[in-house]
């Protein structure tokens, strides 16, 4: 299910022009990180994708649906949205009911609901906590409840708004695994995130926004290598990009493995194959 945002402008009632003539096409199965400073228009754009906001000018299509002709409830079949603050979306008395709410509303059978809720809770690591009240969980786990509620709806498109906020190393690893699993299933994953290292490692395409406009859009390593564009958007490049730049290595390696491979290649090109610094690449 393709996403087509065409020449969209949007102004909030306060008068702030949050999107200026934004065009963005995302094909089914892509993983896209939207980055940029607060106020850049990232969340405004994302809220156009699930119909919470409708374009003032231009159009947004989710598959063959024009978002202006469909309600948020209808669009929820196609686009799942995990909010930055889980407390904006949690309201049931226990974790199970919370996660089951979406699938039931979509008209899934009780057997499907059962299966999807069980799988989603397992995926976020809350399988033993189905009967707890969401607010008895710490904030970092409430975020996973909210995410499970989105996963259980099995939408072709999933939007993750600042998923890494408040997560520790284990939470980050779990999130990474969820994103990779969604990608492997061919679902479209879109994140809005300030965690640039996370975006670099797990998203194949990066869109840089500033002042309601798209400054850059392309494959992750190509975009993250454009340090002057990132500087204009007030985004600090990932740790590995900064390190590669400081060492004069080409491009922006996305993972620790890619960085070390680039380093090894550089060493190979300068070292005689017979010296002790020769190694298996």
């Amino acid at each position, binding site marked *: 299910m393709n996403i087509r945002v065409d020449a969209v402008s949007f102004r909030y009632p306060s008068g702030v022009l949050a999107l200026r003539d934004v065009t963005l096409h995302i094909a089914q199965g892509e993983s896209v990180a939207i980055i940029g*400073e*607060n106020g850049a228009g990232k969340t405004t754009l994302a809220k156009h994708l699930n119909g919470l906001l409708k374009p003032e000018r231009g159009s947004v299509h989710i598959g063959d649906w024009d978002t202006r002709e469909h309600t948020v409830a209808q669009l929820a079949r196609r686009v799942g949205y995990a909010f930055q603050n889980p407390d904006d979306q949690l309201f049931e008395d226990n974790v199970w009911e919370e996660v089951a709410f979406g699938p039931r509303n979509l008209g899934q059978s009780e057997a499907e609901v059962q299966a999807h809720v069980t799988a989603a809770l397992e995926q976020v690591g809350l399988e033993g906590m189905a009967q707890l009240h969401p607010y008895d969980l*710490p904030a*970092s786990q409430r975020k996973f409840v909210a995410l499970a509620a989105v996963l259980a709806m099995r939408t072709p498109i999933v939007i993750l708004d600042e998923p890494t*906020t*408040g*997560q*520790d*190393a*284990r*939470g*980050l690893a779990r999130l990474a695994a969820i994103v990779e699993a969604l990608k492997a299933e061919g679902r479209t994953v879109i994140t809005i995130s*300030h965690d*640039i*290292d996370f975006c670099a490692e797990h998203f194949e395409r990066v869109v840089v926004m500033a002042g309601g406009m798209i400054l850059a859009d392309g494959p992750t390593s190509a975009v993250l290598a454009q340090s002057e564009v990132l500087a204009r958007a*007030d*985004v*600090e490049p*990932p*740790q*590995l990009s*900064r*390190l590669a730049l*400081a*060492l004069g290595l080409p491009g922006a390696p996305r993972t*620790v*493995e890619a*960085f*070390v491979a680039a*380093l*090894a290649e*550089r*060493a190979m090109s*300068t*070292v*005689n194959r017979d*010296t*002790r*610094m020769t*190694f*298996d690449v």
Partner: protein
Amino acid sequence: MIHIENLTYTYPRAPRPALDHISLDIPQGQFCAVIGANGAGKTTLCYALTGFIPNFYRGKLEGRVQVAGRDVLTTPLSELAGEIGLVFDNPFNQITGARFSVREEVAFGLENLGVPREEMLARVEEVLARTGLAELAERSPFTLSGGQQQRLAIASVLVMRPQVLVLDEPTSQLDPVGTKEVFSVLRDLAATRETTIVLTEHKLEWVAVFADRVIALAEGRIVADGPPHQVLAAPDLERYGIGQTRYTQAARHAQARGLAAPDKPLPVTLEQAVAFFTSLMSVAEGDVMR
């Protein structure tokens, strides 16, 4: 400045202690970062240092906590407030909502103590300048960005001239720009060596650059304690759910592939990483010349 002896604390009805036999000494002026997985006891330690435990939270407490020569566990909170300041993760929890400008908000604590007007004005202006808020002094606290609000929360604590400043994940709700603003205030504060700073934080790159000392907590116990380059690079902290910077990860990966000597100290900052990998490349070039 801070002396903790065999502190064990269990929240009401909790199955196991949140802090388990913690002993710790922090000298005056030290910038000490506390890291650990969620649920490791970081926030509880902040509460114990500032008297929130046992004054607000009951539960079972053993051991001693002394800050600036006072016993935190027996001194009333109102007396501690002048010595120890606590900044929460979310500035919304800190800002009173009862004042209409940044300047008045910063003055609030001093008003409550009945500090004379002239002195109050002088102290407020000084703190506004130190936290970069002078130009925002007339603004409503609620029109500020997240980073500005957190600096306001820090300013309203600093104006009390505490000897110890405790910050519990002060940047967790902030974007990179806001995070940078907060750390720049902390860096200037640490440089004076007057205020002892205890900071809990997940953003390890900032900890690596700014902290004098890093304490790692896991399940209520101290599992590592030392300078950043030692603690943040310690390989065994992974099993406690504590991550590492990409610099450390990359260096470890290089070691695993035999590109770097296995005993070469691991980098935790960009600067150290550049030195680490430059030396690898120059060894390579040296070999060619030989």
